[in-house]
């Protein structure tokens, strides 16, 4: 299969499913984001994590390495973003979460799955768990100005990962009833996340792009750069390399907008950053996949 056809095959489901959500959001039909979000965050994603990790028997060292390298990427991004925001004379607490934390769930997980199969999904999950925990912890702390552990502890991801790793360490298969249940509930998460992403994009009102657009471009560009540097430095290959690069280069997370709106920290501009970076990334996605899927060098 030619590379272009392969990339089209990877991207098409993402565009079709997010497109359904976008059309839904534009049509004005009611879409209860709280309900879908609640089902996805509390049940579907935890089940997807458990089911993927236990079914695949991922190599625990690969799983840990992906998480570790992604943490380095987040750290580098925090430092660089702080310098950039200082230079641009923007408030660090308001903008930093949106330039650092990317959409590793809604958009990153489907892409990892489509581009690299279930193994890609497992490594993508490792990164997603780091990203979601950091986004809750640091995102809220930056915006609210005080360290808040509450949302991180409340989120089920970490516990589910621990349970799945427990089964992997003990080299025990989860019982069939648990495997079936988590498999079937987990199957909702990727399509529902993509539909919800489309709905959010259709609904976010952007007053002006301006500087937030530049920050959005920075999110994508710096992400891709740090992903490439880390995968070169650690001599990553194949799926591990591709997943790290993809996840580092995702657009700004919708969660940043939700947090900004909750604490009233310039939600309009954050919406511009989220929407701008997402649309740019959708356009540049074929190129990103080309970079991520081709071997180093």
């Amino acid at each position, binding site marked *: 299969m030619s590379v272009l056809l392969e990339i*089209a*095959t990877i991207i098409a*489901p993402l565009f079709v*499913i997010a497109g*359904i959500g976008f059309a839904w959001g534009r049509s004005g039909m009611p879409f209860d984001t709280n*309900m879908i979000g609640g089902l996805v965050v509390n049940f579907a994603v935890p089940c997807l994590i458990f089911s993927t990790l236990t079914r695949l028997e991922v190599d625990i060292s690969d799983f840990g390495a992906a998480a570790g390298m992604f943490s380095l990427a987040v750290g580098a991004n925090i430092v660089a973003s702080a310098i950039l925001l200082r230079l641009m004379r923007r408030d660090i607490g308001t903008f930093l979460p949106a330039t650092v934390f990317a959409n590793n769930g809604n958009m990153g997980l489907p892409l990892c799955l489509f581009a690299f199969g279930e193994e890609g999904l497992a490594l993508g999950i490792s990164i997603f768990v780091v990203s979601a925990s950091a986004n809750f912890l640091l995102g809220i702390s930056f915006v609210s100005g005080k360290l808040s552990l509450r949302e991180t502890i409340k989120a089920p991801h970490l516990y589910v990962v621990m349970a799945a790793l427990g089964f992997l360490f003990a080299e025990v298969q989860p019982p*069939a009833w648990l*495997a079936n249940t988590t498999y079937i*509930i987990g199957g*909702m998460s990727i399509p529902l996340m993509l539909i919800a992403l489309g709905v959010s994009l259709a609904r976010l009102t952007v007053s002006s792009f301006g500087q937030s657009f530049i920050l959005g471009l920075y999110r994508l560009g710096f992400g891709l750069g740090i992903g490439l540097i880390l995968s070169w430095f650690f001599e990553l290959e194949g799926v591990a390399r591709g997943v790290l690069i993809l996840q580092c280069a995702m657009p700004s997370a919708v969660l940043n907008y939700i947090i900004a709106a909750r604490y009233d920290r310039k939600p309009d501009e954050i919406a511009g950053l989220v929407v701008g970076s997402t649309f740019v990334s959708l356009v540049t996605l074929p190129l990103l996949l080309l970079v991520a899927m081709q071997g180093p060098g």
Partner: protein
Amino acid sequence: MSLFAQLSAIICPIFICAAIGFFWKKTGQGLDPDLVTTLVYKISVPCLIIATFSKVVVTPQALASLGLASIFLLILNGILGALLLRIFRLPFPSYLPAMTFSLVGSMGLPVCLFAYGEEGLAHGLVVFTITSIGTFTVGAALAAGKVSVDKLLKEPAIWAALAAILMICAGWKLPVWMSNTSWLLGGIAIPLQLISLGASLAQFEVSSLGRAFSLTIVKLGLGFGLGFSLAELFGLSGISRAVLILQAIMPVAVSNYMFAVIYKREPTEVAAMVIVSTAIAAISLPLILAWLLTGG
């Protein structure tokens, strides 16, 4: 795997998903039924049909005999149900849909999937599609008092079923991106249907459990008898036979309650039948499954 482990692998996912919906609703969280219906029936179920039949190889002959058997299942269920209601002196518009249409979607499909894999799901979808057509035409007509076909034509699942039949007969294959997309979207249907089943059970107002109990026992017994004899009559064997019997013994469908609410046909009575039959299914379903899985 022991029989107990095998049974719990089939039954547990269903009751856990429904329990999530039940407690979701009981803890006061919203579950917008319109949103769920649109997601499940307009988007996900059509995709599930397309995705399953583009993956599973079923011969047109096998499809036809199972399809025919399930049409007869519905018709005979209706006729015998009507006779019984006449004997009990109960009004048809309120009770006949509940006696005829079973939970072949939200409960039947996962049972077929977990008991017989994707091939089982494909067979289950045949019975499901035919029952849906019946529900939207005859069921709605019974409750509303008039027949409406345009409602049926608006159901994307019908078009998906036609497309699937075309694909099977012509031997066409979907492009990879289309089967990937429909496979993903199809993943919403079963869990979300079950969650909304649980949520519906949590908010039902019921009356007269006694009558519901006797009607339900009759309905489930009738279903088993019909499923078993029709499978013999149409010469079904293996998965086809098991799926027909399983789909025939499913509890009363929630859609009957929806119609009863819309057309004001004693919804509390129908709700009682849905709840009682689901509760009985928790016992009868594992027994019949055990019998089928051990070569019955």
